[in-house]
């Protein structure tokens, strides 16, 4: 709690720039040349000293990527992406040999985090948050590792896991998101650089919220994280992911894959606050965020819950989904997506009901301001054997101004007669009477909008862990700045 308030304060101090987190550090990068080809895939694999099976897997994914068209279902205006114009690997030089402790970390990097308001040293001491910091593709520091390992929890970078726990990685990597799922998934599988790996052993309840901060720093570096979280029988973990990125003029590509697996009675709660650089008010620059997040409730009585607050990126393309295989399994999706200026978002979820008595809940709040377009797209699919399954979906959209768009596109497919699917959606504008009431009590128009929009989103925000909730509320208000005349 204290950490996030501090974060906000520090960030607010940064001053004149519209984008509060827009700055970059000078760290010498080592880079192979731009471009995407088999050699780069091999280079990345070699840099990470990967075993052969991993290289083979990457190469297979790369050949699949070459054959697949880009997915085109989203209501997004995506500029042509020249995949050859990106760097696919960069790592801060001074980290070539991994530091043994925080003291060994490049002071420049530490400074960046201080500016961002994430003092690592303090974070170690802070209320139970272990941080695995990804700085430009390479995991720079993992804290609390020791305490977690005493419980048998594995929390490390995916590269480390490939070396130290190949049996787990082999078994689960790509098992939820097959490499041929769509072309961005294939691309990620071929060139992913780093990301987090979590394994919670049977019967263990992870005592802290696991957390990762991502930052894109090097110019034109597509960042391809790969996250894999496995919750074994009767276990529980809550995972937080937050991102901020420095201001850049050229658009940057981001295509992460996140896979979750829960076995019998296990639960994963995955929370995201996404605040990549959205581009300037004319839509120049900004991150392209093509994320594939999917969880499989493999075991009976297991549960996966996604919570997301999406305020950044020029383009957000993201559908955190649940495959409800186990009987009685549960999937949840809570989402706030805010688009302002020329941002575009097409986001939602997929709930695939396969097991009996499965249930899912979707709460989505979309806010569109400026010249932005915001689409909710969600699939609820009840298969014929999923008897007695239930879904409830509520989608609310708020429009601020009449140059923006809000769209709701649910897909409801049911082939089981014992099941029940309910969908409700509304679209309205921000209530003028409420604004007047708040302003009559002395709030200025931006504070009033922030307050009302936060109220509108409360149902979702209250699902965030405390550490994030405060930050998210401020982000909601910050993202809408300048949207009301």
């Amino acid at each position, binding site marked *: 709690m204290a950490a996030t308030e501090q974060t906000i304060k520090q960030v607010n101090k940064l001053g004149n720039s519209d984008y509060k987190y827009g700055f970059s550090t000078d760290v010498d990068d080592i880079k192979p040349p731009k471009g995407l080809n088999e050699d780069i895939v091999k280079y990345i694999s070699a840099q990470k000293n990967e075993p052969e099976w991993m290289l083979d897997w990457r190469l297979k994914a790369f050949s699949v990527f070459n054959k697949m068209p880009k997915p085109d279902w989203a209501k997004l205006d995506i500029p042509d992406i020249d995949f050859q114009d990106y760097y696919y690997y960069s790592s801060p030089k001074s980290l070539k040999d991994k530091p043994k402790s925080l003291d060994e970390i490049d002071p420049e990097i530490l400074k960046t985090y201080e500016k961002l308001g994430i003092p690592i040293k303090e974070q170690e001491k802070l209320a139970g948050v272990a941080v695995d910091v990804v700085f430009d593709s390479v995991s720079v520091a993992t804290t609390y590792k020791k305490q977690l390992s005493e419980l048998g929890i594995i929390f490390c970078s995916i590269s480390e896991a490939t070396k130290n726990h190949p049996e787990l990685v082999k078994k689960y990597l790509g098992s939820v998101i097959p490499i041929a799922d769509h072309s961005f998934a294939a691309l990620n599988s071929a060139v992913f650089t780093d990301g987090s790996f979590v394994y919670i052993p049977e019967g263990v309840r992870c005592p802290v919220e696991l957390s990762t901060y991502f930052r894109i720093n090097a110019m034109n570096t597509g960042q391809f994280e790969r996250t894999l979280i496995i919750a074994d029988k009767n276990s529980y973990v809550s995972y937080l992911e937050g991102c901020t990125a420095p201001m850049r003029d050229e658009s940057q590509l981001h295509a992460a894959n996140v896979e979750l697996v829960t076995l019998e009675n296990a639960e994963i709660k995955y929370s995201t606050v996404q605040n990549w650089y959205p581009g300037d008010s004319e839509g120049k620059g900004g991150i392209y965020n093509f994320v594939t997040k999917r969880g499989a409730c493999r075991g009976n009585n297991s549960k996966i819950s996604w919570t997301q607050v999406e305020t950044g990126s020029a383009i957000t393309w993201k559908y955190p989904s649940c495959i409800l295989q186990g009987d009685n399994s549960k999937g949840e999706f809570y989402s706030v997506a805010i688009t302002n200026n020329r941002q575009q978002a097409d986001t939602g979820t997929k709930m695939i009901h396969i097991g009996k008595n499965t249930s899912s809940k979707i709460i989505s709040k979309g806010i569109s301001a400026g010249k932005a377009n915001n689409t909710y797209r969600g699939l609820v699919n009840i298969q014929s054997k999923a008897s007695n399954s239930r879904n409830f979906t509520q989608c609310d959209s708020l429009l601020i101004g009449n140059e923006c768009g809000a769209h709701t596109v649910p897909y409801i497919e049911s082939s089981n007669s014992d099941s029940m699917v309910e969908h409700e959606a509304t679209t309205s504008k921000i209530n003028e009477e409420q604004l007047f009431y708040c302003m*009559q*009590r002395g709030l200025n128009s931006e504070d009033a909008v922030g307050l009302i929009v936060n109220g509108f989103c409360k149902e979702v925000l209250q699902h965030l862990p405390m550490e994030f909730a405060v930050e998210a509320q401020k982000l909601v208000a910050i993202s809408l700045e300048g949207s009301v005349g």
Partner: protein
Amino acid sequence: MLNIKDLHVSIEGKKILNGLNLSINKGEVHALMGPNGSGKSTLSYFLSGKDGYEMERGSIDYNGKNLLDLEVDERANEGLFLAFQYPMEIPGVQTSFFLKTAINSKRKHHGLPEIDALEFAKLIKSQAQELDISPDMLRRDLNVNYSGGEKKKQEILQMSLLNPAMSILDETDSGLDIDALRIVSEGVNKLRNKDNSFLVITHYQRLLNYIKPDYVHIIADGKIVKSGDFSLALELEEKGYEEISKTA
């Protein structure tokens, strides 16, 4: 404090206020009475700065400033308070959080630091108790699922927390039972002092038995047709609007 001269206001081309004059000094309580559609609520909304009203003529001086130069929130922070006839429900916003935000907005406007959390807790607890507002209500969403009486009490709580110089009570008595009416009136009376003023808008004389006004004005067709002291309210109760307006 507040000086309204020859005010003409219309909504979508329809004239509502038609040459209204009203002057309120520090420490005074004025009652404004009138039938439905006489322009009472329009006056209160217009003074607060609500959109959608067109001023054709007139001037409003507030503490030496031109009120019309100020935005809604600026007027509020300069001490103009409107107790709404129909307070807004704001889902998802906790009442106590809203109150704190409002207090801090005013403090910021006057260059004061944010209120200390403990101090706020104490303040709100004591004020709420006086108005018979339960702590549970403060944790609920602002005005959502409040009863009519609870909403009005909430308005008075906000008034006492913000300690305005000029309060406008827009039919605060409507929808109140006798107990709530007494509590609300006591709340208002406690706030009365030589530095602040009140404009009490009401349809019935009942409220004025509890909040004794210094002056009573009768409004009809967008202008004040008769002014007097408390006895005018009694006379009105007896004769009705129509007759009083005729004799005016």
